[in-house]
């Protein structure tokens, strides 16, 4: 009797599970795994705004081949471990066909093994570390994609910009040694700056969460240098710039896309944000018609200027949906194949093609800040 009962229960559970996994035939589920709270929350929140706008546009235009896109959104709290857990949940329980995010390289890398094991493509809008789509021994991560350029490109462009446009000969690097992002950028900047005839006078480091940089700044103040390169995120970069300017260091400060957050202005204050240059994916000063339309639509929806993460999120969702539309079947393998075949996809952050290492080939902009406001942008093609 007892055994019969157990059998019945098992059968019931099995039926329910099968029922669940079937899902709705008229919808395509896409996972959103982003940093909605925690240390780099503004990256995640901005990306998701862009993603949601893109999905809304696609659904309003009739969806993909008549099927509506259903986004399933989770918050990974800016923690790589949480990102992995959520990726598992999205794939096994929510049965998504692809996952968008996370925004940072560290969290995105944590998610990739789950994607490879389950054969579900994952794509990030802003994971720029070099070893995101390629492992350290040169093998392509089969199911990982991105729509942003990588850090070697960012470091190279900034090194050349410093040497050519700012005529800098000597640079100081203050890097975030607790992130792959900071270390990768620092290395590429250094290599290329030296190659361009410059020299690195000092290399200092900090870890995420530090607030007092006075000791480092006092130390470099006595040195002779033309520019400071800060490969790191806005939380610390804002404080470094503020404390540097308070100590009377007026040299130009260079950075990367980690500077792109309104929090940078809040932390540093407008009067400290002079002579700041950073590489970025997109500039709101761009006059390209596609960009202008995006900015208008974005303002209408969210009532604010879009930043680069908004634009990348938007491109990311469009990029993945474009591949889903071209895929033969609605499964991970076919979508992955379609993503690999992407050619000349026109996005807000530039036209991109996916290369053999799953990296996009696209242009970059160098943005200049005066009094905390974007005043110049220079577009550089690969």
């Amino acid at each position, binding site marked *: 009797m007892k055994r019969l009962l157990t059998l019945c229960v098992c059968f019931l559970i099995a039926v329910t599970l099968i029922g669940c996994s079937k899902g709705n035939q008229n919808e395509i589920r896409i996972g959103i795994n982003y940093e909605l*709270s925690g240390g780099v929350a503004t990256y995640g929140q901005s990306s998701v705004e862009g993603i949601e706008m893109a999905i809304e546009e696609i659904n309003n235009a009739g969806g993909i081949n008549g099927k509506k896109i259903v986004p399933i959104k989770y918050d990974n709290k800016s923690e790589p471990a949480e990102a992995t857990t959520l990726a598992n949940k999205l794939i096994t329980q929510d049965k998504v066909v692809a996952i968008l995010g996370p925004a940072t390289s560290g969290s995105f890398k944590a998610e990739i093994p789950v994607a490879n094991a389950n054969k579900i493509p994952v794509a990030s809008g802003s994971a720029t570390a070099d070893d995101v789509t390629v492992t350290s021994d040169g093998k392509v991560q089969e199911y990982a994609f991105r729509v942003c350029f990588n850090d070697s490109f960012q470091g190279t462009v900034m090194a050349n910009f410093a040497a050519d446009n700012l005529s800098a000969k000597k640079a100081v690097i203050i890097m975030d040694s607790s992130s792959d992002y900071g270390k990768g950028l620092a290395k590429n900047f250094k290599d290329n700056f030296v190659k361009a005839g410059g020299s690195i006078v000092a290399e200092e480091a900090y870890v995420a*969460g530090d607030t007092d940089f*006075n*000791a*480092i700044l*006092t*130390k470099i103040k006595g040195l002779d240098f033309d520019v400071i390169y800060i490969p790191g995120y806005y939380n610390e970069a804002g404080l470094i710039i503020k404390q540097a300017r*308070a100590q009377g260091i007026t040299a130009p400060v260079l950075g990367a896309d980690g500077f792109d957050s309104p929090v940078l202005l809040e*932390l540093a204050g407008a009067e400290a944000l002079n002579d700041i240059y950073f590489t970025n994916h997109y500039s709101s000063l761009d006059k390209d018609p596609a960009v202008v339309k995006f900015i208008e639509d974005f303002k209408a929806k969210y009532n604010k200027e879009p930043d680069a993460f908004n634009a990348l999120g938007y491109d990311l969702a469009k990029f993945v949906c474009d591949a889903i539309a071209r895929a033969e079947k609605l499964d991970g393998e076919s979508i992955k194949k379609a993503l690999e075949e992407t050619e000349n996809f026109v996005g807000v952050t530039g036209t991109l093609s996916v290369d053999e290492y799953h990296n996009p080939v696209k242009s970059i902009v160098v943005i200049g800040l005066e009094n905390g406001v974007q005043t110049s942008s220079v577009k550089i093609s690969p």
Partner: protein
Amino acid sequence: MEQFLQQIVNGVSLGSIYALIALGYTMVYGIIKLINFAHGDIYMLGAYIGYFCMTYFHLGVIPSLLIAMAICTLLGVIIERIAYKPLRNATRIAVLITAIGVSLFLEYGTMFFVKANVRSYPPLKGILTHSFKLGSIVVTAQQILIVCITIILMAFLQFIVKRTRIGKAMRAVSLDRDAAELMGINVDNTISFTFALGSALAGAAGILVGIYYNSINPLMGILPGLKAFVAAVFGGIGIIPGAMIGGYFIGTVEVMVAGYGNSMFKDAVVFAILILILIVKPSGLLGKETKEKV
């Protein structure tokens, strides 16, 4: 030389913060032999209270400071009454674990209410934005404010502990709780008062850090809390002047390591000092060797 003096200025302002937090650690340890790990989080709450006062109620620095200190005082007493008082006669390890629990509760409770993002204090106005140049040494008005407020608070604390009745009661309880009780001292109230004083100082440190660095988050109390603990141990835990000296010492060491050595090692050096002290002179700089009473 100028660079050295500038580093001293940096070290003293950082050390003031550590000293303010370390005082709370040391007073609580002196009176109930508890390392109150939740103390760093009171500092964080002080920073948030100051943030709300200045951002939403547009109060000035001094009123915000007083409000933050008052609310932190209250919180310190409430935490003592709810979490530690019922464990007065429990083993010390039980109280210590409770302290860690309270600490995590405050950190993640705050994170739930205010989110984990970094927040920035509103821009300062008037005199506080100035900086003064002595030769090539730059001293900002904020650094002067931090050091001045720290010294005023420390002098006030010394006055309370040395010159008032409640201060006398605190010293009596820390010397021998049972004897103090027999002499008619209300031990529970005295312990609450100690928590109140320590929490007020931590709250003050929190808002000063908010003004100085302009960046606060719910986990900001962990590392400064631990470093202040090192400072307290360095000066001799339980001894008030020791905590002040320890705070300034740790702040200066940290700055010097970053300034003349490798900036990556600054935290490691601070904790290496803790290990060294515990090996060489566990009673700290000002502590006397005492035999454990059996």
